[in-house]
């Protein structure tokens, strides 16, 4: 079953040998030292404070949507940092390796990274940023907020929700393992064909990339199913479709997109896997293979994936702008319509990612025109936010600042995106740094929205706000850094600098590369303020109100701050679109329920985290072609799932007295508080 594998292979260890550990590479060795040290510090601290059991019981085995959301966000932020370090290394390499006389260090001809290493870095940068930074952050905020906004107890399928998280984590774990055992793919995050095929890429890098991608996309598909079912089935009484907050609408559209596209990329990656493991010829150049098929399948997933990340960002702006303008969202129905338009158009524009692959003018013309259509609903959204601010009472809190810069970046990214959608222009800058600058503008819109969202809902989750002063310093340094890094890239793209260059032959570009590098330095400054913001907020922990910003409009601001693990002591009855604003208008926002009924909640389970661990082992074993281990871990996953299906645990019941006690002392119910062991229903009935 193994096709033309270079080098040794043994039944026990597959392709794995000591030679796979890059101990001769100083960059990787020092990275390993830092990661190992951090790991030791974290585990040591957990041991020292006796929190290991707490972490296992309350976090790793949890099925609570809020804790899962928080863990998604932590994963996203950690991977964002790693992706940023990759980006910093790339910009530094391009700065150093500029011109034929540029010096070389650490064994590289120019700069300090030989092409093979450089290629892995940008592949990792793209893969990490999309699948393990942006996607978990989006999924995490969705998990946190959507059930609260629709007044639900939890997601529709809490156990599946935890499984999604741990599958995503297992993909990220594979990426991290690839740093220190073997290598990562050098075939770009899109997986160039036929370059990723066995004959031209016989190493384990592509396998690592493929399995990390595959596992996380399965996790994302499950999450999409869960979110759609939650929004459709779990809304509180009275929450009709058109009373739903716009963020929930955008979550719904985005997950419809997710459910429809991830199977396609699963097929594309599986075909690549079959090619690599069995020697078939889907995407090879020879034997009738058609690598255009891969490019099409990939971008049928890949373009809607952009909107999969962008629509939640738009949803976040639609929550934040009204709150900080102290005014209802302008044009609610057309906002919903625009979300669906963007999602719908997103399905039929994929080929604009390869205008230069020789399609005829008919196809290029169609895909150009279709792509431009996206500009209409996006423009509508921008206008609606602007008219929400118009005649409002605006406060410049940090989330609002992020939303405003997001809007500006959206305009720049939109302009350059409309330019690129015209294939007549794309012929001149396709695959150049102009494209890189354009889509970084767009992902910075997503980034701004995510930072806005995290800052906005932080008090709801943890009970205290993030420090405003340092948060604003972080904001300004981050914005300055982004401008410094990416504005020069637009010009460099015009000047003909291609993407993915390990070496730039034209030394005249040095000044712009320096500006861009200065931006990287600025990012480090902003990182300092980010750390300081976290430190100061955690140190002071100034308690926040239920309606933390004072002008909240939606349901999540109705429940306590920090939010109890059961969300609402009694399910609210929904009377209006902006329920809290409606209750404020009626003067009843402080009215609490007078009596409680018992709440039925699901028990924690270790099965999802075990599935995640086994999936990591499976991916690792497949990557290194350790067949016995692959089969064993796959069987183990199936057996674990079957055993779990025999489990009679139907969750537990929170008694009315318990609820009353926690309602009086909210800190007891906070998601960071340790809960006493409550007997499961089956056990109660047995007695």
């Amino acid at each position: 079953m193994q096709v033309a594998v270079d080098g040794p292979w043994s039944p026990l260890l597959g392709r794995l040998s000591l030679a796979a550990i890059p101990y001769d590479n100083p960059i990787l060795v020092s990275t390993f030292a830092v990661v190992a040290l951090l790991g030791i510090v974290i585990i040591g601290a957990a041991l020292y404070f006796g929190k290991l059991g707490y972490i296992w019981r309350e976090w790793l085995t949890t099925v609570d949507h809020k804790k899962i959301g928080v863990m998604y966000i932590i994963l996203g932020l950690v991977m964002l940092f790693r992706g940023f370090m990759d980006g910093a290394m790339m910009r530094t390499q391009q700065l150093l390796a500029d011109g034929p006389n540029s010096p070389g260090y650490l064994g590289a001809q120019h700069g300090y990274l030989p092409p093979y290493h450089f290629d892995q870095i940008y592949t990792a940068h793209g893969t990490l940023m999309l699948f393990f930074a942006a996607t978990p952050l989006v999924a995490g905020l969705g998990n946190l907020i959507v059930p609260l906004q629709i007044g639900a107890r939890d997601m529709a399928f809490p156990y599946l929700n935890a499984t999604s998280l741990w599958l995503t984590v297992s993909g990220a774990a594979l990426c991290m393992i690839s740093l220190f055992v073997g290598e990562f793919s050098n075939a770009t995050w899109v997986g160039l064909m036929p370059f990723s095929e066995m004959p031209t890429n016989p190493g384990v890098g592509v396998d690592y990339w493929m399995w990390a991608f595959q596992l996380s996309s399965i996790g994302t598909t499950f999450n999409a199913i869960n979110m759609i079912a939650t929004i459709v089935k779990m809304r509180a009484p009275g929450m009709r479709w058109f009373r739903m907050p716009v963020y929930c609408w955008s979550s719904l559209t985005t997950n419809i997109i997710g459910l429809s596209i991830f199977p396609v990329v699963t097929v594309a990656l599986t075909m690549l896997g079959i090619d690599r493991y069995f020697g078939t010829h889907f995407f090879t150049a020879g034997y009738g293979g058609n690598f255009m098929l891969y490019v099409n399948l990939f971008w049928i997933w890949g373009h809607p994936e952009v909107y999969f990340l962008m629509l939640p960002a738009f949803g976040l702006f639609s929550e934040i702008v009204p709150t900080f303008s102290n005014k209802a969202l302008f044009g609610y129905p057309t906002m919903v319509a625009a979300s669906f338009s963007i999602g719908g158009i997103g399905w039929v524009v994929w080929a604009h990612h390869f205008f230069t692959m020789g399609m005829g003018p008919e196809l290029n013309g169609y895909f150009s025109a279709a792509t431009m259509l996206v500009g209409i609903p996006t423009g509508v959204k921008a206008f609606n936010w602007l008219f929400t601010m118009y005649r409002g009472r605006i406060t410049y809190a940090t989330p609002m600042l992020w939303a405003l810069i997001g809007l500006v970046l959206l305009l720049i990214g939109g302009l350059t995106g409309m330019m690129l959608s015209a294939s007549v222009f794309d012929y001149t800058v396709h695959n150049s740094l102009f494209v890189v600058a354009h889509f970084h503008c767009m992902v910075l819109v997503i980034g701004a929205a995510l930072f806005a969202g995290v800052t906005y809902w932080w008090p709801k989750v943890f009970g205290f706000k993030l420090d405003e002063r340092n948060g604003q310093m972080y904001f300004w340094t981050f914005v300055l850094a982004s401008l410094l890094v990416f504005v020069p890239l637009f010009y460099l793209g015009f000047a003909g600098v291609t993407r993915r260059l390990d070496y730039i032959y034209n030394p005249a570009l040095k000044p712009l590369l320096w500006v861009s590098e200065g931006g990287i330095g600025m990012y480090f400054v902003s990182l300092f303020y980010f750390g300081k913001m976290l430190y100061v907020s955690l140190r002071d922990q100034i308690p926040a109100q239920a309606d933390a910003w004072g002008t909240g409009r939606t349901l999540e601001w109705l429940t306590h701050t920090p939010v109890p693990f059961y969300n609402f002591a009694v399910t609210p009855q929904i009377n209006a679109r902006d329920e809290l604003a409606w209750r404020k208008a009626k003067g009843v926002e402080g009215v609490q329920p007078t009596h409680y009924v018992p709440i039925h909640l699901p028990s924690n389970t270790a099965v999802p985290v075990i599935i995640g661990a086994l999936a990591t082992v499976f991916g690792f074993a497949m990557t290194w072609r350790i067949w016995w281990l692959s089969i064993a871990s796959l069987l183990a996953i199936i057996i674990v799932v079957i055993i779990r299906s025999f489990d009679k645990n139907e969750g537990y019941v929170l008694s009315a007295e318990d609820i009353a006690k926690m309602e009086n002392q909210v800190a007891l119910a906070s998601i960071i508080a340790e809960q006493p062991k409550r007997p499961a229903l089956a056990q109660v009935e047995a007695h």
Partner: protein
Amino acid sequence: MATSNPTGAALALWNPGADEHDPISARTYGFWLYLIGDALLFCSLFASYAVLDNPVNAAGGPLTAQVINTPHGLWQTFIILASVLAYSLGTVSLKNGNAAGVQLGILAALLLGGAFLYISGTDLWALAAQGNGPTRSAFLSVFFTLLLTHGLHMLFGILWMLVMLVQVGVLGFTKDVVGRLLNLRLFWQFQATMWVCVYFYVYLLGGAR
């Protein structure tokens, strides 16, 4: 629960007990969503098949008409439809709470599914033995992948049926078990539908070219 606000109007603010959702309904809905995803997986495979079912992609090797066994395909279609019928008859017993009837229906469906897989397996094995295995050309790659993807779905369904046979006996008709039986029925009909698509697209249309 109605609350009086300061102005005296009765307002409904809280709704105790409203969070009990029908678990089987939510699970079935979720399973339908999963089936949409699975259907898109087959869509991508059919699209790939359409692209690669082409003399260029056969690389000198055979095309559809030379690799399918049309009479077997017809028999397989009958078997798979009979299997779905058997399972459906089993779920009629579910309404009566008749565990033995359900188990009998599942067992019949399972055995018919096994027979289908046996025919499919021997046909593909014979094809590969002639030197027309999946590594021969891109067309054969997609031909094998499409058929085996469907076969893998059946295998998964059969495994699921085995588990359900035991669970109906051991656990009885609990909420979970009934939910699973209903979802399995959806799944089994789904894979049969996919086979009908394969039969129509590959065996009939492809064979006619």
